[in-house]
């Protein structure tokens, strides 16, 4: 059995305080980032939870009062990339729990209403061309757009979060925005945004 010494207790209290004061206030931003990376609430929840558990496990490596937000974003981005790589290598699997839940729901009288609602939500989500266009960006490009345009990180902060030189951040942003422009041109015009850009 581990005996909690005064020293241990003090550092645990200090870590708990850092967690409460510096880490937890970032949860909205982390969840928004996770959601825009995965476009799935369950996956976003898992990513955020994994991020916080890892952050707490390695909290002694964090220097109190520094950029907690960037530190947490880096952990989340790495967790996402690891999952993303695993998923893209793994063959398609059917989740056992999903099958069990499916059969349970099939006996539920509310099942048809439930699927109609999900279908409606799905259609509404698919209707959002911007979401589709961002989702279609290669993951490295999607990450920089989200970090810059939603979270307002500086190029330097982004370069630390994703471990690439600032020049690479700059060129990825430039290319990502050009890709988005290409994909969204028609959609934006249909909403009244006009592309009057002239290169002459």
């Amino acid at each position, binding site marked *: 059995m581990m005996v909690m010494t005064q020293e241990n207790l003090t550092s645990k209290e200090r870590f708990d305080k850092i967690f409460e004061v510096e880490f937890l206030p970032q949860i909205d931003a982390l969840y928004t980032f996770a959601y825009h990376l995965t476009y799935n609430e369950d996956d976003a929840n898992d990513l*955020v939870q994994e991020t916080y558990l890892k952050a707490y496990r390695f909290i002694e490596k964090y220097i109190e009062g520094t950029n907690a937000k960037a530190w947490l974003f880096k952990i989340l981005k790495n967790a996402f990339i690891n999952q993303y790589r695993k998923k893209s290598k793994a063959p398609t699997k059917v989740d056992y729990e999903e099958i069990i839940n499916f059969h349970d729901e099939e006996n539920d009288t509310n099942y048809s209403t439930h699927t109609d609602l999900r279908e409606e939500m799905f259609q509404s989500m698919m209707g959002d061309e911007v979401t589709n266009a961002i989702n279609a960006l290669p993951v490295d490009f999607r990450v920089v757009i989200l970090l810059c345009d939603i979270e307002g990180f500086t190029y330097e902060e982004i370069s630390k979060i994703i471990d690439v030189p600032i020049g690479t951040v700059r060129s990825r942003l430039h290319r990502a925005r050009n890709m988005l422009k290409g994909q969204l041109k028609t959609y934006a015009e249909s909403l009244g945004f006009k592309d009057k850009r002239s290169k002459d």
Partner: protein
Amino acid sequence: DYQELVRKVTMYLDNELSEAEAYLKVLSQEKSFREFIKSKLHRRKPSPALIKSIKDKIKT
């Protein structure tokens, strides 16, 4: 083929130019494109259940 101007304008809008800081049209178009994208990237709130779950796991 403007691309250099767009690059500078982009950095200007990101507050990344050094004090480096028809062209006006390019600036306003880049700005409205940026606002258009931002308006579509909605912020989302985590559920109270997620926050509780994280706190519980940290405690135990």
